[in-house]
């Protein structure tokens, strides 16, 4: 098991290198050089060139990439933000908790709402308890999160004045972003749980359990649920990773200083160190979450555990 985890951590290295290279290449296409961005319109071209030289921006692409990676991973220096002059790493670490908390609460909402209702829908297939939640879920899945956010803002901030509309001061600040981000994912979790559960209750071992004389509740909660949750856990883990970086629009709308907005601002202001480091940190985090999910999976499913320990 440990060997498996260590192996997986080593496997993250090529991923991080690859992702950083892709992003570095894409960013290299972005028009605008750091010098003229930092110095603004008032600076001379000579000053701009000088700064670009200082930043190593006049070097060939591959050399710049190699320098960046060397600094980032050997001396753990992700550089200084062009826009704020703050160390990039520090800024990211400041913002990570916000995104993490938003993603975690949205995920929690998605799980708390989606999974039980999905289970219920599957168990009561072809009844109103199935049709109504499924239809609502399909509807919610068709809404962009920011649209939900706009409507929530209108109702709960403007008209009812229940929740603050902006910033991250207190737990109340998280209520609306959580809902607007969580609802589409809840609907996704619901649909996924439902189909996973439907798949599970068709399995032979469910029939075996029934033939044992187990009552329906025991069949569902004891036998079916844990098996049905296996894929649900994986998908939730995947989504959790994506939510952290994917909540860009929600973070923007609610003015939350998260990793998403940081990277988006970085893209907008050509703050390349921020974008690079942001996406690298995100990738590592994402891989770690996936690993965590996989390890968790092993504790739920003995077959998977056996596969890990055998070193596959």
């Amino acid at each position, binding site marked *: 098991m440990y060997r498996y985890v260590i192996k997986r951590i080593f496997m993250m290295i090529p991923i991080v290198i690859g992702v950083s290279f892709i992003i570095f290449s894409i960013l290299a296409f972005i028009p605008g050089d750091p010098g003229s961005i930092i110095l603004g319109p008032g600076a001379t071209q000579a000053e701009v060139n000088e700064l670009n030289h200082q930043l190593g921006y006049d070097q060939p692409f591959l050399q710049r990439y190699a320098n960046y990676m060397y600094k980032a991973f050997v001396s753990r220096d992700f550089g200084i933000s062009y826009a704020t002059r703050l160390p990039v790493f520090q800024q990211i670490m400041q913002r990570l908790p916000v995104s993490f908390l938003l993603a975690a609460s949205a995920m929690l909402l998605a799980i708390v709402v989606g999974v039980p209702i999905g289970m219920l829908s599957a168990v009561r297939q072809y009844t109103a308890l199935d049709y109504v939640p499924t239809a609502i879920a399909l509807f919610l899945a068709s809404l962009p999160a920011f649209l939900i956010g706009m409507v929530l803002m209108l109702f709960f901030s403007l008209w009812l004045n229940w929740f603050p509309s902006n910033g991250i001061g207190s737990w109340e600040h998280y209520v609306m972003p959580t809902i607007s981000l969580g609802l589409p994912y809840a609907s996704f979790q619901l649909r996924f749980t439902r189909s996973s559960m439907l798949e599970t209750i068709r399995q032979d071992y469910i029939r075996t359990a*029934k033939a044992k004389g187990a009552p329906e509740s025991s069949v569902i909660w004891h036998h079916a649920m*844990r098996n049905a949750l296996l894929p649900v856990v994986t998908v939730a883990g995947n989504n959790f990773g994506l939510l952290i970086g994917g909540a860009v629009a929600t973070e923007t709308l609610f003015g939350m200083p998260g990793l998403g907005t940081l990277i988006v601002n970085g893209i907008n202001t050509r703050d390349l160190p921020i974008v690079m480091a942001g996406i690298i940190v995100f990738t590592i985090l994402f891989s770690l979450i996936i690993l965590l999910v996989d390890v968790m999976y092993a504790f739920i499913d003995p077959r998977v555990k056996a596969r890990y320990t055998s070193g596959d």
Partner: protein
Amino acid sequence: MEKPILSVNNLNVIYKTRKFTVNAVNDISFSLNKKETIGIVGETGAGKTTTALSIMRLLPERTGRITGGGIHFNGDNLLSLTEAQMQCVRGANIAMIFQDPMTSLNPVLTVGEQISEALVLHNTGNRSPQQIEKRVDEVLTLVGISPSRKKDYPHQFSGGMKQRIVIAIALACEPSMLIADEPTTALDVTIQAQVLQMIRDLRNRLSTSMIMITHDLGIVAQTCDTVAVMYAGELIEIGRIADIFTGDLHHPYSLGLFGSIPKMREKTERLTPIPGLMPDPTCLPAGCHFSPRCPYRMDVCNTPAPTCKMNETHQIRCHLFAKESLVSMHLPESLKTSPALPKDRTQESAIEEKHEAPLIQTLGLKKYFRIKNSYLHAVDDINLSISRGKTLGVVGESGCGKSTLGRVILRLLKATAGEVRFNGENILGYGTQKMREMRRKMQIILQDPYSSLNPRMSVVETIAEYMIVNKTFKTRQEIFNRAVKLMDTVGLARRYVNSYPHELDGGRRQRIGIARAISLDPEFIVCDEPVSALDVSIQAQILNLLMDIQKEHELTYLFITHDLSVVKHISDEILVMYLGQCVEHAASDDLFDSPMHPYTKALLSAVPEPDLSASRREISVIRGEITNPIDPPVGCRFAARCDSCRDICRSKDPQLVDYGNKHYVACFMLQNYRVF
């Protein structure tokens, strides 16, 4: 008379979906006495499992519905019990074993948990947790599994062991009745023998009544007291085992079933299959459902058949045996035979010694699969040769490498070492172009008629595909015309030309596969379990077809199968494989008459035969299960399971030795008995 433990009276079950309604079980009645076993036999779709599920009241909730009749268990009508009451009956009084042990255990719970669950649910004796634990140990011991493994998860057990656990769960609460739904169908023949023997022993020791659902008449003969034959939802014949296997009056369908099975102990040139197919359950023929396939069809057969009592225990549901028919017409003589009694063996045909060079020959053929850092020896040094027009049968349990062998010979898999000679030329050395031409001469018929046809291609397209690829004809019309002729050859009605595979049943699909295989006029065909997925009546049709085509086109077959009776029927010579190696190779009759290798012997004795005399024989059940030949150690690979294994078997590889009459065996133990 003793009160039966279970009586099913006029049971009717329908499956209702939005589109159609299926009469899955139609007015069946039978009863089961204490300590008795009733076998329910029939082909796919006969309603056997539905009957069992009705007794358990476990029919699919939304679709399945019991529309009439009664099921009395120990005097209680099960159909009038509430769901909660029924839950007390299930597991405690009636237990059920399902077909596929691979999927009937919950993968995330330990086997101990799964066994104790039943005990906790039906804890009538107020057992303490310790007592329950003790009982789990007991039950596991009972089914031959060490109690120390109760903390293990299902995936840590092999198929046979899993089925033992399923049986342990069923028997944990000592139910008075056990329903076994095809309990051994998914298992290899040697494991099947082990499990069957165990079921028999436990039934006798625990005095359990049992319903044995199976399609295998051999299993019925070995385990049952009473037999019920079902066809299209109806019970068409029921009787004591002696009535069915040795009596002289039979329903035409039962007779057909017996006729379809290749016999182990006799040489039959042709099987006598039941013509036609099972009717579509959504539109059953009026009257007797079997009448469209019945050779004795009468006008009266389009009215429902009456149940006729032949004697105290034997009932047949057929117009032929109705009083008026019996009076008015002469009962066909063929219906009065007793099908299962061995006939005198027809005179053995001496093996013709042709001195022709073999068409197919392999020399030291090896195929290893790399699995991480070790090698799986799927095919390990196989030498065989097949003469033109002959059939070599390859038998062995699953995982013995027989399918791999077929594919390596056809170069569908790359051989690791050795030669495959076709007409004396080593085709393994051929280049791409030459091999493509070679491909026309060698074909394969695959096992699964469902996955062996491209579901997006119509029948005619499928058959024409090889000809299009190989450009045998100039125009597409010519190719299609030839495809239609091939359909005639394999007995496939022309109206199916534009059908898609999923619209056809397994038998017809297999005919498509055969038509495709012979479309390029090959000389050699590898038949990879071509009939194992088919019901017996269809199996017989396909076997006959294969033999007819062989004769007509002078084809050479490599016939791969795990079914010994089939291989006996079709092969001239037989090669027995075990873990990638050949353990015995002899002429078909020779091998069956005097098997020499301990494995062959065990294999032969493990087959349950639809024959009462044979079934009463002492069966030597082989120990253990087949494993993976991953980096196998030196020595006989069968040693671990062999009763007469000695030290030499573990230290040296046995070589194939001719014991006369080209009967090759690889076993050290025989060398003492060498005749010359």
